[in-house]
């Protein structure tokens, strides 16, 4: 859970600030089945002391409302805008979480967000925490799916250094 909490805090902060509305933590569960995409999803990969991925997932209507709220103006519906919004949201949450984890001594690299087009994703395994959580906002639900693990090769390399 120590890897997950910074992402929950970051999502809470980024969504609350960006949307300027109260936000509630909805469901939180281990994703034991393979991940099933709910709408437009952006995936961010991490490599380094911690490796894995975070997926941000919003339905198209929610993404448009989020985009409009972030822009401070009603925006016209566009597939590109919706994809961009989900990617940027993922980028901001991941960046803020990584800042917190880095301050705790973890060293890793965050890769630019990419659209996650597959219907399914990684499921939990023995060494990978895969959690799916829902943030309830007044513009709709935002889902975050996190599958992270410690990179043992990095740990061994550090110990041998």
């Amino acid at each position, binding site marked *: 859970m120590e890897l997950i909490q910074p992402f929950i805090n970051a999502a809470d902060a980024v969504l609350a600030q960006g949307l300027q509305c109260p936000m509630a933590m909805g469901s939180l569960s281990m994703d034991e089945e393979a991940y099933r995409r709910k709408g437009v999803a952006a995936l961010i990969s991490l490599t380094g002391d911690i490796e894995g991925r975070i997926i941000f997932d919003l339905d198209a209507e929610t993404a448009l409302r989020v985009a409009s709220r972030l*822009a401070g103006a009603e925006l016209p519906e566009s597939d590109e805008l919706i994809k961009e919004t989900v*990617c940027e949201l993922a980028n901001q949450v991941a960046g803020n979480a990584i800042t917190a984890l880095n301050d705790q001594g973890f060293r890793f690299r965050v890769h630019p967000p990419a659209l996650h087009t597959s219907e399914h994703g990684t499921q939990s395994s023995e060494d990978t925490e895969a959690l799916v959580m829902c943030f309830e906002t007044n513009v709709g639900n935002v889902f975050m799916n996190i599958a992270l693990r410690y990179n043992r090769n990095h740990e061994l390399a550090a110990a041998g250094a």
Partner: protein
Amino acid sequence: MEPFAPVRRSKDGQPIRYLVVDDSVFARKNLARIIETFGGQLAGEAGDGMTAITEYERTTPDIVLMDITMPQMEGIEAAEKIVKQHPEARIVMVSSVGYQENIVAALQRGARHFVQKPVKPEVLYEVIKYVLGEDGTVAQAAGAGA
């Protein structure tokens, strides 16, 4: 979004010209909107570090707002290359990844300041004024002092 007292170039009173570099179109548009509330002008946009270098040459902006994590060439490397050619370049890193190592690396390689995403307009406004120093003047806002 509340408008701010416009910031102008001290030498000629013209709007500050910005080059906005971010791989997210959404983030670029958002920054462009914020810049507008500062009375600034968008001189150019780039979606990666390589393009940022050519756009800097083409537009010679007063300020560059540069993301860090981007494809092809990352922001810190692009900032270093721009500053090497143009030591007077004023580059402000704008990134969601705000840990100390990253900030120090950016400053060591020529960036003047750092703003963490999500961008708070009032924070960016203060940073812009600081980075411009005497080269920027805060103009009287329309209707101010009435």
